[in-house]
């Protein structure tokens, strides 16, 4: 059983990291978003492996069901970015690579491998915090953060609407046929008039 879990974990980890690499390197931004979804999924599977089923399901619900859809919509609303020919990285992207690699080294070598974690002894019967306890915690000791988070969400909701909202008056209205004909008529009239006035001005 342990070997099975280990194999599952290694596969999931490899897939997560590969998907992450695809997210940052792939040219087409839509593909990047889809790879991000894949990465979210495998992270959710890792949560399930760690018996945090509530978090796993919330991860799927929020990240896959909401955020990635939002991202896809945003990409499709800003249409010019999906072009394949456009350069996707900065010219000095290698600096970012060095920074990221250095950070990885800093994180890995001293902290991860040279530290003894006080992991619970295996085989011990330990109670895992359940969903009910999370709910109780939100209503008791984490009530203030919970309320702050809800206010944050409300603020984000209103802020997103305010930022992205386009006044209806400024939006280009779809014209009816009658209006289009009228506009064309007016444009033609102005075109017909314009050269004559211009000519009269120059003659004077």
């Amino acid at each position: 059983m342990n070997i099975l879990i280990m194999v599952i974990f290694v596969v999931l980890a490899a897939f997560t990291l590969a998907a992450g690499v695809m997210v940052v390197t792939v040219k087409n931004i839509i593909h990047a978003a889809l790879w991000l979804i894949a990465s979210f999924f495998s992270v959710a599977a890792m949560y399930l492996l760690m018996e945090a089923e509530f978090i796993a399901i919330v991860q799927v619900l929020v990240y896959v069901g909401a955020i990635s859809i939002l991202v896809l919509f945003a990409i499709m609303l800003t249409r010019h970015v999906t072009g394949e020919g456009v350069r996707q990285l900065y010219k000095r992207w290698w600096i970012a690579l060095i920074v990221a690699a250095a950070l990885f080294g800093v994180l890995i070598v001293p902290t991860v491998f040279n530290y003894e974690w006080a992991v619970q002894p295996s085989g011990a019967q330990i109670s895992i915090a359940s969903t009910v306890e999370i709910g109780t915690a939100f209503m008791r000791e984490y009530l203030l953060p919970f309320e702050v988070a809800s206010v944050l969400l409300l603020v984000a909701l209103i802020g997103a609407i305010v930022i992205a909202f386009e006044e209806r008056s400024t939006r280009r209205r779809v014209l009816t046929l009658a209006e289009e004909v009228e506009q064309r008529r007016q444009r033609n009239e102005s075109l017909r008039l314009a050269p004559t006035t211009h000519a009269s001005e120059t003659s004077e």
Partner: protein
Amino acid sequence: MNMVDAVPLPWVLAVAAGLFCIGLFGALSRRNTVGILLGVELMLNAVNLNLIAFWRYLEPNVVAGQVFALFIITVAAAEAAVGLAMIIAIYRTRLTVNADEVDSLKG
């Protein structure tokens, strides 16, 4: 028959660190603001993975780890909403989403 026995904690932490660094690279090197946002989301995921790993391996009977993960998911959702709204607003006025082309405050 659980993950604690099968996989050592440093492995999970290494995966989280790798994911974080990949996200960082993406956020730093992408020109596209949506791409930057995707990198930030990867970083937040890595943080969440760390939190859940610490919760499960060190203190599974305390809810704090899961609660903080939930808060981070909330913040990520808010960040994505506001960030994408800003991207759309910028696109509407400047017809670009590339971060290096939106530099009118540079002087």
